[in-house]
């Protein structure tokens, strides 16, 4: 038995821990790769300038998607604005839960698709968007819908879009940096190499890091994403006080095997349940689960039952 507050606090602690680990890893990778680049360029601190360039490029790309996330996602998904009369339950449930969580009512959209799913995005609570599919609105009753919406509003309240954007900037930077380094080293590196042992070690380490760090960074990014899902589940229960609603909603959504047409890989992490659905069992399962944006539904339900 875990009470809601402790579940929330534990999830916050764990996600802070993952973030600390992530930043530590990014700093180490940037340091090693830029040192190794310095060897090619012939002077030591040169690589840091390259890291700066990688940071700026990745930052600009992510900033655009962060700043306009609501508009981009909505135009990709082909959503229509929700209507109070037509989508009475959806509209009013969001209104009510916004009161409870003390955030302004987000903009509401509906995707015409029978696969039940929902997502939230937007850079801060003032520019937030909650979007649900017609399938979700038809298949869930009001209590279940409250669970799902409270989960989405928790993402908004916890600034998850912002957090994931920061993580994405850093992952993008590592990928760019590693890519640049590998290109330079495959070309053979024209600068005369000094036979100093330290630079040889950095060169070797640089190659190892350049190959591995984009994957590792991506894995940590996914771990952050999964942790935020658990946190949003716990926060959802803190708002509605009815774990049963979210549990049965997750069961209904998971049981439905129809893939969501409007979703693609770039937007998958936003949804309440992975829109591509989970397949595969056994030994492969654990490995595959490392690459998932969402924790398995069964694990989420088990965590929720402990709070019930």
């Amino acid at each position, binding site marked *: 038995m875990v009470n809601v507050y402790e579940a929330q606090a534990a999830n916050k602690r764990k996600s802070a821990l993952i973030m600390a680990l992530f930043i530590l890893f990014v700093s180490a990778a940037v340091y090693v790769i830029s040192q190794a680049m310095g060897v090619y360029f012939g002077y030591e601190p040169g690589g840091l300038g390259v890291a700066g360039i990688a940071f700026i490029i990745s930052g600009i790309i992510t900033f655009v998607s962060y700043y306009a996330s609501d508009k981009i996602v909505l135009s990709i998904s082909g959503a229509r604005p929700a209507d109070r009369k037509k989508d009475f339950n959806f509209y009013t449930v969001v209104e009510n839960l916004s009161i*409870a969580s003390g955030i302004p009512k987000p903009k509401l959209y509906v995707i015409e698709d029978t696969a039940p799913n929902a997502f939230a995005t937007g850079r801060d609570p003032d520019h937030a968007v909650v979007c649900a599919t017609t399938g979700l609105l038809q298949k869930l009753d009001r209590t279940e819908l409250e669970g799902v919406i409270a989960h989405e509003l928790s993402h908004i309240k916890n600034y998850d879009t912002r957090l994931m954007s920061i993580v994405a900037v850093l992952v993008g930077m590592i990928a760019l940096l590693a890519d640049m380094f590998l290109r330079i080293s495959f070309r053979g590196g024209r600068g005369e190499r000094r036979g100093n042992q330290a630079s040889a070690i950095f060169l070797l380490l640089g190659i190892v890091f350049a190959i591995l760090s984009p994957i590792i960074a991506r894995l940590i990014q996914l771990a952050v994403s999964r942790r935020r899902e658990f946190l949003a589940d716990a926060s959802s229960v803190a708002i509605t006080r009815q774990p049963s609603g979210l549990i049965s909603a997750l069961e209904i959504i998971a049981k439905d095997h129809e893939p969501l047409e409007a979703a693609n890989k770039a937007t998958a992490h936003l949804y309440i349940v992975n829109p591509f659905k989970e397949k595969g069992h056994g030994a492969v399962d654990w490995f595959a689960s490392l690459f998932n944006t969402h924790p398995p539904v069964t694990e989420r339900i088990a965590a929720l039952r402990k709070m019930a």
Partner: protein
Amino acid sequence: MPYILIGIGVILLLWFISTYNFFVSSKARIKGAVQEIGNQLKRQAELIPNLEASVKGYLKHESGIFEKLTEARRAIASAVESGNAQKMADAGAKLAAVLPSLTIAVEDNPELKGSDVVGKLMDELRDTADKVMYARRLVIDLTADYNVRRVAMPSSLVANMFKFDELAGLITPSEGKHLKVSEEETKTPKVKI
């Protein structure tokens, strides 16, 4: 070395300011949340005349319900005017007590149950009842947050320094029937069909 000390000093000062700000802004937010309860109750009270008007013709024999509804509405109006959270909560409870009997009366009447207007109004009523409940939830959550930070280390140091009082939030009697489970309630209810 002196730079490290200055750095620590700056961090401490920032922490101090943000903790102080947490307490004062929580107080302001709780005040706002209490007003929100009043706001929602008022909405609820305004919906009821519409519902009454559309069902009164069918439910002439249930005049007792309508008397109680009117009375509850008056209580809400005066409680909202007074701005007292406790009075508002009491008035809301009064109304909530009448609504189920109205729901039953409507459901017993097939003519009404089938009517679109009444169905919509009943939806709206359920929705406002939820809104009032969630507005109260916000007061409860904000107050609990405030009260925890007030006594927990290290923010309690700031709270003590500025004498931030414990806030009551929604007053619930700390003793009484609602905290006890009677013998009756432990039995699983049997439903006869």
